């Protein structure tokens, strides 16, 4: 259960085409992340799958049944919203049982499922509180609980962690990943945060302006981005993209080199420039280097021990074996 197939799905709002014809297959039990800059259509795509928006053309199949014109409730999907969308005047228990009550389940069955979900999500102590009395992370868990009890064939998450603070976000990220391992249900997760995408996904779908730029596992995307957009979007800090003469030496229009694949020395290396900003994270240090004549800024990621100050002249050596080459259209060569 939980195989979702999109066949040449399009979406127009008035005359603006938000999603040009798009094909995508999401396999059973996969954790798929839609990632892209804001306005790339990733949330719209999720809402199309959920049925909250109607497709302009194309077919959506859920478990091999045509679900294109099916009402959202009939698709067997559960969604967790960005704002959590909890019902404010109902207790946590009532919130979680709401879909069950709507489905007309017996009281005993409802209780059983709530108890189970509350245990999984550590909510047992809060069942009689109102959403207003909970913290952000707890509300998030209630929203997930409301999705779990329906035992859907797939979960849809719409930027669920963007309202949480950084520490909680890391925690919830792990919890959702664990939940996926335990439930083995298909999950589709929308985010603009590529760290979330990289850490959680089995499969990442990179979107730009409604187009799928690349589909692949996190490491596939990291090691062989299909074009410069994906290259720049996946990986943190961003990949350095270098045009012009230096690229021509490698027989490409543009070359890309990740910050972690450049070594820095105070004395020798083919490229040189001045340190403008150095960010010390403890384990790593990021140097932003200007005046190399290659690109505005070259970012380098080195071990936390290396220490250069503002204005220091440094020499950079790229690792030739991991240089990405792109042609004039920005597509990967070789």
């Amino acid at each position, binding site marked *: 259960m939980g195989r979702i197939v999109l066949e040449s799905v399009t979406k127009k709002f008035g005359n603006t085409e938000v999603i040009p014809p798009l094909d995508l297959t999401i396999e059973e039990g996969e954790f798929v992340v839609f990632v892209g800059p804001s306005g790339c259509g990733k949330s719209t795509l999720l809402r199309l799958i959920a049925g909250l928006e109607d497709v302009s053309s194309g077919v959506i199949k859920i478990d091999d049944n045509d679900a294109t014109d099916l009402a959202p409730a009939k698709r067997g999907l559960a969604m967790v*919203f960005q704002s959590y969308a909890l019902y404010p005047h109902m207790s946590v228990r009532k919130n979680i049982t709401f879909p069950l009550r709507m489905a007309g389940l017996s009281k005993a069955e409802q209780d059983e499922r709530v108890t189970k979900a509350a245990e999984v999500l550590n909510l047992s102590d809060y069942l009689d509180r109102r959403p207003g009395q909970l913290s952000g992370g707890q509300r998030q868990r209630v929203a997930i609980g409301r999705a779990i009890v329906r035992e859907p064939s797939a979960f849809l998450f719409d930027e669920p962690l963007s309202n949480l603070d950084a520490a909680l976000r890391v925690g919830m990220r792990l919890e959702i990943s664990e939940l996926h391992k335990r439930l083995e249900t298909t999950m589709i997760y929308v985010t603009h945060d590529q760290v979330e995408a990289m850490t959680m996904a089995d499969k990442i779908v990179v979107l730009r302006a409604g187009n799928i730029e690349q589909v692949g596992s996190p490491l596939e995307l990291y090691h062989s981005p299909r074009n410069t957009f994906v290259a720049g979007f996946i990986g943190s800090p961003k990949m350095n993209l270098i045009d012009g003469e230096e690229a021509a030496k490698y027989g490409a229009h543009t070359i890309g080199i990740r910050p972690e694949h450049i070594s820095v020395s105070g004395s020798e290396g083919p490229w040189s420039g001045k340190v403008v900003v150095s960010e010390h994270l403890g384990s790593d240090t990021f140097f932003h280097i200007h005046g190399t004549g290659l690109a505005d800024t070259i970012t380098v990621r080195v071990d936390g021990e290396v220490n250069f100050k503002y204005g220091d002249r440094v020499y950079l050596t790229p690792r030739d074996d991991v240089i990405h080459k792109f042609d004039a259209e920005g597509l990967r060569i070789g």
Partner: protein
Amino acid sequence: MATQHSRSVARFMLAPAVILLLGWMLVPLTATLIFSFKKYLPLRGGDLGWVGFDNYVRFVSSSAFWPSVMATLTIIGSVLVITIILGIVLALLLDQPMWGQGIVRILVIAPFFVMPTVSALVWKNMFMDPINGILAHLWKFFGAAPVEWLTQASMQSIVMIVSWQWLPFATLILLTSVQSLDREQLEAAEMDGAPWISRFWHLILPHLARAITIVLLIQTIFLLSVFAEIFVTTGGAFGTKTLTYLIFQRVLESQNIGLGSAGGVYAIILANIVAIFLMRAVGKNLDS
């Protein structure tokens, strides 16, 4: 920033408004209280001295008193029910995206800007007139005998006029509340398999509860003093004599200022009892 100095300046600045309001309220209130303990008949001897609680006893024991209380409550109750139910319906309809939304909203609000006297006259002469009224023509068109609204169904007619006036107010308050409902909640409920009626019952109505209480509170206080609509249409005949209207009759038609003032004091007490209950209801609502 609330230093001693700025606080005293604030008090000084507030003083004119507070003094004006207090004067506005206290002077008539005191006058009413004083008159209510006097036998005061301007055309029949003027001030005839103190009479204790005579006026209070006479006002309540008059045969017109209880019917007037009932008429007041009937008008308030019916208008509240009509405006709140129709207000919710209209608010939900106006919330839908549609062509010409701005104009439609202004049109819906328009009746609220018509003065009560004017709207009552318009209703009386243009709608409810048994010969020339639009409703009479409508009835005749279907072959029915025109209804003499203000004599045959006087209470219903007044409720209709007053509801028409207050519906925009209820709609407006409820509409802002409907608009503040989180769309994602409705979508979540839709995904949870709740049909429209459940979404209305479990999400929209609880969300509107606060707005409904506010409409209740404000309308009740204003409806207690409905006067122009009755004065212009039935003149208090055919069972439409409210407490306010009875007081008016006692003071101006019977020229008995003492008796009318006693009625006024009853009205103040009644309004305050209602206000206390409603304040509590609102307070409870705001707490949760």
